[in-house]
């Protein structure tokens, strides 16, 4: 029973972590809270749905939708953040412009898809149950979890072992110094937005697949949960976002298992509030991206 619950927590936590990685990456590099992240999560799931409906095989559809999410991320930066960066507008104004982009993306999704829930496959995705000792899961869940974890390791590799990753960390640490040392700021920031939004989009697609459902309010659930995750792990911390994602996944799964499902969100935000008050830097410190 507990083993099964922990496994369920792993599935939930993986998606939370993936979503939060994009959130925290943008915060770590630019010090802005990107409230359009959840809209990209949602629109990517719709894009994958459309491509599947057009007859593309699922993995290809998902891959294309993830790339599209990344491109939307770059556009988001060009439209909503880059102009503000040039005039040093602080952190509040970009927050508002990201709300503006979220409204626009939501409106486009509503115009194209309407308010009805869409299903990747009518009648449910084909998923074989797998029994492994005390736990049961489906092959689909296994693929979702493996994809999420694979993407996390991919991000970790890019940040640690590539020139791009080095540049991203340099910009996160000190934008001016990085520019002086020859890092192309705008390119690095664009790449950051591509990666962050692609991860957010991947999280949306995996969630849509897990429930075989995509709808306009897909992002509203995770938007604030993502904040709880990155606060728990420490704003800007990559490791923190992953561990925070799984921790919140465990808290929420256990809350539901123990009959507290109605209070689940209060528990999540209660934990977030307590951490902010007691240890604002989170478990892994606020600047972990900069020293990773």
């Amino acid at each position, binding site marked *: 029973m507990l083993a099964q619950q922990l496994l369920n927590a792993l599935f939930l936590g993986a998606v939370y972590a993936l979503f939060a990685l994009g959130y925290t990456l943008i915060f770590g590099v630019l010090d802005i809270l990107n409230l359009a992240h959840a809209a990209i999560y949602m629109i990517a799931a719709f894009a994958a749905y459309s491509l599947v409906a057009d007859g593309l095989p699922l993995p290809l559809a998902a891959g294309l939708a993830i790339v599209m999410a990344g491109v939307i991320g770059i556009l988001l930066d060009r439209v909503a953040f880059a102009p*503000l960066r040039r005039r040093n507008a602080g952190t509040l104004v970009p*927050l*508002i412009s990201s709300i503006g*982009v979220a409204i626009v993306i939501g*409106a486009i999704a509503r115009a194209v898809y309407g308010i009805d829930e869409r299903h990747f496959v009518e009648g449910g995705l084909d998923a074989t149950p797998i029994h492994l000792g005390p736990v049961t899961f489906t092959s689909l869940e296994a693929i979702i979890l493996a994809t999420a974890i694979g993407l996390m390791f991919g991000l970790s590799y890019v940040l640690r072992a590539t020139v791009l990753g080095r540049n991203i960390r340099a910009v996160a640490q000190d934008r001016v110094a990085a520019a002086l040392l020859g890092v192309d700021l705008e390119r690095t920031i664009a790449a950051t937005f591509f990666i962050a939004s692609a991860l957010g989009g991947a999280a949306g697609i995996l969630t849509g697949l897990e429930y075989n459902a995509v709808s306009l309010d897909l992002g509203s659930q995770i938007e604030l949960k993502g*904040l709880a995750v990155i606060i728990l792990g420490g704003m800007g911390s990559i490791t923190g976002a992953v561990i925070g994602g799984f921790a919140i996944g465990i808290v929420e799964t256990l809350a539901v298992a123990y009959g507290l499902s*109605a209070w689940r969100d209060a528990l999540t*935000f209660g934990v977030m509030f307590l951490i902010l008050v007691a240890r*604002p830097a989170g478990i892994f410190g606020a600047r972990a991206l900069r020293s990773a």
Partner: protein
Amino acid sequence: MNLGTFYAQHSRLIDQIGINALLALSLSVSLQAGQLALAQAAFAGIAAYVSAIAAMQFGFPLAAAIAVAIAAAALAAAALAYPVRKLRGIFLAIATIGFGEIVRVVANNVDITGGAEGLSGIPNDVTTPIIYGALLLVALALVALARTKFALAVKLTREDENAARGVGVDVGMVRFASLVIGGAIAGLAGALYAHAFYFLTPTDFGFARMEQILVWCVIGGVTSPAGAVVGAVLLSILPEVIRPLADYRELTSGLILLGVILFVPNGLSMLWAKRGV
């Protein structure tokens, strides 16, 4: 068009605009002290429920119900102010958003608020003159406050907390007071809302509403109370004006929001601030 007919057709919108202006003022009070505290919607929600319950279950007359509701919202703000006293910027914003979510979940789950279905049949005795009378009173009170030493302390706290401390400003007190004053104003708005629309659900004052209030203030000009009111009024009317665009309403709102943010750097208040008003 005949004014009477116009009012009859738009009375709900007119009432909503007045309440929105109050909500914008309430956030503007904490923004002026440099605090990005995003719990105004939650304070308004607490007051709306307190006021509705006081009137429905305890038979409070309107004025008493509103007074109790304002006190409850101010108390909630005071209770929140202490634990978050050390948080700044985005961290304060996130903590207060979390507070708002907790309030929403509680409203969703306890019996006295009617749970997710909310409360209906709240005595519908708040009229348009009451709403605008309240707005006028709050505006006058804020204008009067702006002429006191407190306003100077608020401005110093916003510009530079350490410098403010250096010249003897009790920064903690300024932050506390601005949250509580803002909470009380939000409480007034929430109570008026409950009695003007006689129907109340937990989502009425959720994060989406908080986002709206923040947008009004920033569009208007972050540190300008007059700008906050203008932002609230314009953005509340906007969806109605572009009603002919029906399907593109949301899209147009989003684009206008982006346009103002990108092309009017200090919000709408800069349109008149330059002329020294």
